[in-house]
């Protein structure tokens, strides 16, 4: 006890000096930003897609995940699907009016992850959305490359030790992101920038970290947007009764109509979901547009998921530029309707729930 007393006194003195402003701790805000960056869903998801103990490909990026790792990814996706289902339930009357089509109140849809690499993201007649792991990893890789393009921190392939083959460049960028994450986690010193970036430390560290934080937030929003748009599009096929129709090579016009309708449904639904703040317990600030997903889907997701333009029934998908344009138009229309006629009017008050909040947005499942 006698030995503790001086320590307690010193601590009390330090706290009082701190409070009075006599002492300032340089780097405190850096650390807060570091911790916030590490709590970012992008970082957490990268642990799931690229676990350090995962099997490695030649390019050094984990591709074959264990069943347990796949289950973790599925749990994340189920959280997003739950948000889509809830939004549909709350706003199904608005959606019906928007789409001009009767719809069920509930979407009894399940979700499975295909462990293969067949570039599949579809809802099947067993009312289950199947997402191929290759597609999900492609989406995630796209989100990281997006960071690379817009961020101050260097993820260029030149830093990679992997062989210089063009197909590996993407993997090299992912590798550098993973290295950056490891460095960020291991940083213990006075400032984060000094440790993580070493000689590259900028004159204004706080500014650099803020830029990093913004980049991470944007990339996370765009990644979640990709997933939300994909899930909403597939949910749209169910809600609009498309699963009762067959995909026939002789009826490609109808196929195109269905795809565009599902895009419109997804955009209208996300127009209702996204303005609720915060989304998934995470403050996306000015990234609502990305969270609505259609833009990152058509500009990043389509390419990185390796989607082709030909469907299983040999019909051609509408051009992604056209889909992007029509989704944008739908967003404007849907938002106008929601704003003009009021959100409350459209809300479906289910008697089974006794929620105090307007909207039950599940929190993002962090590790």
């Amino acid at each position, binding site marked *: 006890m006698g030995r503790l007393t001086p320590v307690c006194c010193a601590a009390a003195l330090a706290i009082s000096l701190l409070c009075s402003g006599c002492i300032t701790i340089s780097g405190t805000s850096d650390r807060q930003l570091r911790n916030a960056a590490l709590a970012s869903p992008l970082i957490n998801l990268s642990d799931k897609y690229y676990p350090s103990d995962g099997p490695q490909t030649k390019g050094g990026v984990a591709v074959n995940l264990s069943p347990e790792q796949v289950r973790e990814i599925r749990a994340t996706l189920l959280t997003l699907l739950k948000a889509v289902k809830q939004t549909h339930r709350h706003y199904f009357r608005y959606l019906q009016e928007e789409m001009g089509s009767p719809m069920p109140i509930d979407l009894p849809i399940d979700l*499975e992850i295909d462990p293969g690499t*067949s*570039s*599949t*993201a*579809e*809802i*099947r*007649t*067993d009312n*289950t959305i*199947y997402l*191929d792991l290759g*597609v999900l990893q492609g989406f995630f890789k796209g989100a990281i490359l997006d960071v690379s393009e817009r961020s101050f921190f260097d993820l260029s392939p030149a830093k990679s030790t992997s062989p210089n083959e063009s197909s590996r460049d993407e993997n090299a960028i992912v590798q550098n992101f993973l290295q950056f994450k490891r460095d960020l986690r291991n940083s213990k010193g006075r400032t984060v920038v000094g440790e993580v970036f070493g000689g590259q430390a900028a004159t204004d560290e706080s500014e650099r970290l803020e830029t990093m934080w913004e980049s991470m937030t944007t990339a996370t929003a765009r990644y979640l947007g990709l997933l939300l748009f*994909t899930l909403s*599009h*597939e949910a749209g*096929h169910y809600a609009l009764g*498309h*699963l009762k129709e*067959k*995909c026939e090579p002789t009826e490609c016009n109808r196929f195109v109509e*269905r*795809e565009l309708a*599902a895009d419109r449904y997804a955009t209208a639904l996300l127009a209702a979901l996204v303005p609720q703040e915060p989304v998934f317990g995470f403050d996306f600030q000015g990234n609502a547009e990305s969270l609505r997903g259609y833009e990152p*889907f058509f500009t990043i997701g*389509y390419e990185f*998921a*390796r*989607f*082709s*333009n*030909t*469907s*299983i029934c040999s019909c051609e*998908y509408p051009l992604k530029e056209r889909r992007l344009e029509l989704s944008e138009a739908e967003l404007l229309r849907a938002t106008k309707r929601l704003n003009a006629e009021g959100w409350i009017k459209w809300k479906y008050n289910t008697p089974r729930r006794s929620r105090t909040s307007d909207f039950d947005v599940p929190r993002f499942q962090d590790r």
Partner: protein
Amino acid sequence: MTRCHIGLIAMLMTLSLKVNASGKAETLKVPYRRPGSAIGGGSYSGVVLEAEKDKAANTCAIITAISARSAGLLQAPADGLEAQKPYKTDYARITETEFNEYNQANPDLKLAPGPLYAVTYEVAYEIRKSFVLYQIKSRLFYGGRDSEEWYEYKKKYDDAFFSRQLLASIEQRFGSCAARK
């Protein structure tokens, strides 16, 4: 328990795996997927099975596979085979090639040359979410070259060998049966 005892038990356990008396069914999961609506084109592989074709596709796969072995079902419902219900076949003669293949695969459980051999099967299928589960039990019989009678083979033999042959044949036919209009 001595090392000798443990060794003896292990040996007996190994032998028991090969005994036909177990009546254990061999199973095979054949993957399929339902038709769907995708957000973008992908590279598809595997069998696409429409829900309304479950019964017809599986009936087709099982019956054509059994027919290819020159056998038939003892009771074949006109409207197709029900899922989760076992169906028995009559005798499927073992050809000379199959006889040689069996003896080559089972040097410890060789069938003696001389008599004719035939197998009866008990087949069942079950539709699961992403695959069809087929279960087959096989029973071996023998008969004289001049006799029409078949007698159950009482010695040890590898019944799984015959079950696996039929399972492979069903799997091979499943895709084309599912694609039938």
